[in-house]
């Protein structure tokens, strides 16, 4: 579905992504794991069109999308739930969700709204509250719900576990699996390798802008280096 080939991205003079290739197959959960600063978020920002690669290709079902603007990429079915949630603090929960469905016409989005409220009943209870007044966990739920409102084919999730209590992380990851089971392909970027590999089928390990290891999630969990460096075993 998504193929990234030999991607090079720079922040000014810094060579942040140094020739990365990977692919995401339809229906999968694929995870990119790695330490802080490995370049995980940079990859997602480049896929979403917020950053332009200096070299390489990003193909969505064969179509080159790396030259498109962010709104055109959303129109092609890729939504991102950014790192740090980034909800609109002064907009109500409902308004945040409506913005997620910004490109959809008329009342098409009401079905997704119902679904999001089913996944996260707490959001419905607080729908008229400014998003900035929600707790961290609720803001993460809102960010995910907002990403679903566009009815994406591919959902990019950037560090959904960040700053959340372990119990809440479990809850969020269960919902990510549920979203995937409902037919949305997922590319998950995580520092929490343990949780990420427990729900993904395929994983890539990133170190300072390069992929150093890849394989099925089951293989990676058994891999000696991964166990030492990322799982603390």
């Amino acid at each position, binding site marked *: 579905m998504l193929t990234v080939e030999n991607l090079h991205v720079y922040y000014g003079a810094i060579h942040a992504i140094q020739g990365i290739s990977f692919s995401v197959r339809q229906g999968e959960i694929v995870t990119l794991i790695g330490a802080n600063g490995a370049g995980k978020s940079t990859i997602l920002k480049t896929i979403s069109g917020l950053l332009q690669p200096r070299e390489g290709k990003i193909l969505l079902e064969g179509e080159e999308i790396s030259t498109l603007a962010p709104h055109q990429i959303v129109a092609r079915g890729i939504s991102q739930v*950014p790192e740090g949630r980034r909800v609109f603090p002064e*907009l109500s929960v409902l308004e945040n969700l409506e913005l997620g469905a910004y490109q959809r016409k008329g009342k098409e989005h009401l079905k997704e709204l119902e679904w999001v409220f089913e996944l996260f009943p707490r959001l419905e209870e607080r729908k008229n509250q400014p998003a900035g007044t929600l707790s961290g966990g609720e803001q993460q739920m809102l960010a995910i719900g907002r990403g679903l409102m566009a009815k994406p084919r591919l959902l990019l999730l950037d560090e959904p576990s960040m700053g959340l209590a372990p119990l809440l992380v479990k809850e969020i990851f269960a919902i990510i699996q549920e979203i995937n089971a409902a037919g949305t392909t997922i590319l998950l970027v995580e520092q929490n390798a343990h949780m990420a590999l427990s729900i993904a089928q395929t994983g890539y390990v990133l170190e300072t802008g390069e992929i150093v290891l890849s394989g099925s999630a089951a293989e990676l969990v058994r891999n000696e280096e991964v166990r030492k460096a990322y799982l603390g075993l």
Partner: protein
Amino acid sequence: MSQFLQQIVNGLSLGSIYALIALGYTMVYGIIRLINFAHGDIYMVGAFVGYFAFRAGLPLPLVFFLAMAVPALFGLTIEFFAYRPLRKRNAPRIAALITAIGMSLFLENLGILIFSPDPRPFPRVFTNEPIYFAGGVTISIPQILTLAFTSVLMISLTLFIRFTRTGKAMRAVSQDAEAAQLMGVNIDRIISVTFVIGSALAGAAGVMVGILIPRIEPLMGIMPGLKAFVAAVIGGIGVIPGAMLGGMLMGMAETLVTAFISSTWRDAIAFGLLIVILLIKPSGIFGSSSRTKV
């Protein structure tokens, strides 16, 4: 007492003008963090369009339409050719600010070149015959028109920002532009819409000033532009109700000082007001200091 009430009426109509211009400053700042110094000159363009439209004998609604549409087109064009290329190259904000000052000088000198620097009398469309209220307070038809039309514009703007899809996208962009893009908002389009609305409001202010104070000239935008900018800062830059309130306060302060103290002190006191308010609340009346802009 009636003298005081009279000055309140005068202050409100002058304040409406400042408020309308201040809205453009604050909206553009809210979206792209740029003080668009060419904005006062857009107001001048509105006054001149109104001037020629009245002279051509067009009906009032059409005059207002043109005096808003032409400045809107100017705003759109300036954004497209002057500010957008800088944004696409990630130029530092100071470069955009200097460009804005350059745009302002360009419009002023273009005005002088085309219309000559001499002031010209604005066509007298309405009688200035005062209408008497209770207590000896008077109000003129141009003042009524100004207050009424300003109210209509402000209410429409508020409803637009609050309830329409584009209005919500504008609020989202002002809170987190990158996240708004991830929602599929075409940020260039939102910026264009912002310039169009802000410039149209300034154009409306320009033609109303022509009717109120029937004299226009190419440099007429400088002082009101500056004062409207101050008004936007007083209200809290980037906050729409702040610009409305700030403009009204500015107009009121200016009128009251002129009437009861001295017209020489008018501007000094108006700007003194800015200093005092910012000393007490540095982010402006409605501005929140806690919010960090990404």
